[in-house]
């Protein structure tokens, strides 16, 4: 019969005991998962079963992680994503969540830029932790990303983005994510990219504040190279704050738009 062990196919005799598979594949495993449920006792495996063998606390090797990710994302998709480089301008509620989603997706290179430090008020929606307060966002986020996916390269720049340094910072990225908070900064970045790197895809956001329906958060193609996520209208202002759910939805839609662009899909 054929079973799957740690994402790899394995031919074994009918009714092979789990303990036998553990001895063969990973004798030091102390957490055994069969078909999604942890098991404490030995059992006979059946054709098509999925087994995960884990050594508690062990960090998989880079090669193992790569294999696991390729298996989950299908190898063709993973290979294309692995070669990609994505820039993220601004590491607040949008940018920090986009970075984590793209790291989990296996995007090979991330360029993270933000001049700011983690403040207590950021924790309501941004992907930082209380023990990171006061640290540069670039440094704190890079640390988190290494814990999520050590296989990817993360380059950081703790500086303020201007129209002048956009070419140097983002000239080589395949896709740029605009994840600023201020409206004037959003416009500045979009215009700067268009001027220095015509045609480079930009995935921006506008209208992500409040707790209105997430159904109004959409991806719109404003120009052939410019995609905007949000409802385009709901600005952050007194009475309409930025909150984790809606900002998170928009960030994941930005990350998904990036993924689709990397895979050659341009119509959203």
């Amino acid at each position, binding site marked *: 019969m054929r079973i799957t062990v740690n994402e790899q196919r394995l031919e074994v005799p009918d009714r092979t005991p789990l303990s036998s598979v553990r001895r063969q594949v990973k004798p030091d495993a102390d957490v055994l998962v069969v078909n999604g449920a942890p098991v404490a006792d030995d059992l006979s495996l059946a054709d098509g079963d999925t087994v995960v063998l884990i050594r508690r606390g062990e960090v998989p090797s880079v090669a193992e992680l790569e294999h696991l990710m390729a298996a989950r994302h299908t190898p063709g998709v993973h290979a294309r994503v692995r070669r990609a480089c994505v820039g993220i301008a*601004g590491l*607040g*509620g*949008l*940018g920090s969540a986009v970075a984590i989603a793209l790291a989990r997706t296996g995007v090979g290179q991330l360029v993270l830029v933000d001049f700011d430090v983690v403040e207590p008020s950021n924790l309501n929606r941004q992907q930082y932790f209380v023990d990171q307060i006061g640290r540069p966002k670039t440094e704190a986020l890079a640390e988190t990303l290494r814990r999520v996916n050590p296989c990817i390269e993360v380059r950081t720049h703790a500086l303020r983005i201007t129209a002048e340094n956009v070419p140097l910072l983002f000239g080589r990225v395949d896709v740029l994510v605009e*994840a*600023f*908070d*201020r*409206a*004037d900064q*959003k*416009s500045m970045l*979009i*215009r700067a990219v*268009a*001027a220095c790197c*015509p045609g480079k895809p930009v995935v*921006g*956001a*506008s*209208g*992500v*504040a409040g707790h209105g329906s997430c159904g109004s958060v959409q991806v*719109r193609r*404003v*120009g*052939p190279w*410019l995609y*905007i996520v*949000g409802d*385009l*209208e*709901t*600005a*952050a*202002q007194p009475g309409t704050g*930025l909150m984790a759910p809606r*900002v998170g939805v928009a960030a994941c839609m930005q990350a998904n738009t990036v993924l689709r662009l990397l895979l050659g899909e341009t119509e959203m």
Partner: protein
Amino acid sequence: MRVKVHFYGQIRQKAGVEHTDIDLAEGTVLRLAFSALAARHGEEFGRMVLEPSGRVHPNLICLVNDVPATGDEHVLKDGDGVALFSPVAGG
């Protein structure tokens, strides 16, 4: 000459329409086209596209035929398609 203008986001809200056609004199520059649009769509719309000085608002993203406009004095041509978008704060 006739130019087609598409509005996105809050600008669409202020304009009250998704798109419009506007007839302009040959050689009209962007800044003056926006003045004409402001006269048609009202003060609030006007404040989103032009500064009090008459210059194009710095927050405005303006694409002419899918390419960012080169500035206030960008000369429009018959049949041009203009897209106007002004991001709002939040991230």
